[in-house]
């Protein structure tokens, strides 16, 4: 029997699900090997019976805590898909204000009608088996995970920082252009897509395992910068990481 796969969206932009739809012709191959039983963005079909659950988005309400616990109970394998699920992503920017302030700013005098809690990544609420990082995730990585799960192979995340791929792509170092970049400490696997596109790395794929923080500090010093200079920017995708809170 084909494994039953479900996609669930929590607080986020649904760009991760869209990237799955953007598999394009590969999606036809995908549905030959798995049954997609829940994909609300694209399908009315609904089921509570599934083996693999992909979770998109952060947990930002009490209701979402209950909902993710229910999904965890049903799923054999739970995957955090994308930055909002893996680190709380940009949603965590609101954590730097009180929830009262956020509500008041957006809803004014009607703030009392609505509820919100600080944004959390999925694994801070329920155990997560696999992480697919990125905002948005790289399509190939989702496919690679599905292949590993189907064939019983071990799924490993890319271990090197973004700089490794960036050098292979022969980009000019962003620091040389007078900008900051989180490539030295951020998990690669994205083929340095942001630098290729003329920008810098915002760290959407979270810290690489065992980041060389001393080397990063030295690099910053070489360009007359300190950790404090870049902290505000690091919070954009990694506001829930301890390093971004200090």
């Amino acid at each position, binding site marked *: 029997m084909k494994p039953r796969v479900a996609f669930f969206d929590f607080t986020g932009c649904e760009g991760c699900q869209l990237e799955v739809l953007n598999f394009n012709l590969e999606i036809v191959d995908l549905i030959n090997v798995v049954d997609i039983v829940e994909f609300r963005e694209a399908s*009315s079909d609904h089921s509570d019976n599934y083996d693999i659950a992909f979770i998109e988005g952060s947990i930002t309400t009490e209701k979402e805590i209950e909902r993710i616990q229910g999904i965890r109970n049903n799923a054999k394998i739970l995957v955090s898909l994308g930055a909002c699920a893996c680190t709380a992503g940009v949603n965590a920017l609101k954590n730097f204000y009180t929830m009262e302030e956020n*509500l008041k700013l957006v809803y004014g005098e009607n703030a009392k009608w609505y509820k919100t809690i600080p944004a959390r990544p999925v694994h801070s609420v329920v155990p997560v088996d696999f992480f697919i990082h990125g905002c948005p995730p790289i399509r190939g990585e989702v496919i690679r995970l599905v292949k590993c799960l189907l064939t019983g192979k071990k799924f490993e995340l890319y271990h090197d920082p973004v700089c490794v791929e960036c050098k292979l792509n022969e980009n000019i170092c962003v620091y040389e252009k007078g900008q900051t970049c989180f490539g030295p400490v951020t998990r690669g696997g994205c083929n340095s897509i942001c630098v290729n596109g003329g920008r810098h790395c915002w760290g959407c794929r979270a810290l690489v395992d065992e980041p060389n923080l001393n080397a990063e500090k030295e690099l910053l010093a070489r360009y007359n910068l300190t950790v404090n200079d870049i902290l505000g920017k690091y919070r954009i995708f990694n506001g829930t990481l301890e390093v971004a809170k200090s």
Partner: protein
Amino acid sequence: MTTANVNFKVHHVARIEGHGNIIVNAKDGKIEEVKWEVPESPRFFESMLRGLSYSDVNFIAPRICGICAVAHATASIEAAEAAFGVKLTEQAKLLRDLLFDAETLTSHILHTYFLVAPDFFGVGSVIPLAATHTDVVLRALRLKKFGNNWADVLCGRKTHPLSQVAGGFVKLPTEEQLKGIKDELEGWVMKDMVTTVELFKTLKFPDFVRETEYIALTKPNEYAFVGGQIGSSDTKPAPVNDYLKVTNEFCVPWSTAKFTKHMRDSYQVGALARFNINHEKLHPKAKKVAQDLGLKAPCYNPFLISAAQLVETMHVVENSIMILDKLLSKGIKQETPEVKVKAGRGVGAVEAPRGILFHDYTFDDDGKLIAANIIIPTNENHNSIQHDFDKLLPEIIDQPQEKIKLTMEMLVRAYDPCVSCSTHMLDVKFK
């Protein structure tokens, strides 16, 4: 005299972006409750963006919505440019319009084929169609893939865009790449569009009429997508800086998304509103598509928003060929975007695939954001959906519950709501 008891709740309506619920409660044919509920978890972007530099704001604004990421990026960038007084070069302006056309095509193809068409084939999603209507699905997939690749060439990645910034583009496409896009547009894409129209011509859209106010950006000489003035079916055009006088947002307790109204109880935005206001400025083939699909302005049937999207899809194909001709005849010049930040306020307005979108920012001397207000097309349509429900339900209350449910879901889907922008939506609850 009907005796129908109808009670249902569609929880998290499917095939829309985001979460919404439909609640219907009728006893002995008397409607006690019909409600469009938006329980999406609020995002608080207007709060979150504070303190960030304009370039970071422009970079993360697309995270409001994965599907219309280019529209949010463009509105965000236009707001910053308005605040700082940045003038675009002709080339940058053309590239921006070309990128915008790519998203309009991709989003409209996704909506009409993947989210709307399954209802007409009596299936829950496009997945079963892959087996029964392989040619239809393959056509949809290749058109969508083409739109994505086209956007990738211009901005590095459609979800979420990279190379478009305030003042222009930090990375430019090559003339060869542009020539490639043009060849495909003039070749198989145009043919596929003709086949697409043939297919949708055969679908019977529900017969329903509710006249309301229609609001869309408008320009004197072109079918407006980026910038212009705020046009309305009921009033004279207004400058985008006066958008608050048009949107008049208000909160309702059953929805995390805000509602809006202008001259009437509600107003509609999106493809049909644009068509009603700007149809005379459509390119010739797009006008022909409107004729073929039986779409005549003014049209008051919200189910035909999907038809208007197909008209627009043809329009952007024609429009981009014209833009590409201009760009290629002059050749691509290397230019670096230049922005001098200063304190100030700016409003950016664009026509996202789902309707008029506003980003309004105030910056300090260093170009850091002090305040933001963002008004999203789906929010503007919530109130219109509710008023459509109020008129539609009594007209169909004698039908079987499942049929009522489907028709109401189809109505919501016709609006192509993108609730995660605001919050999420689509659930029909029959209580």
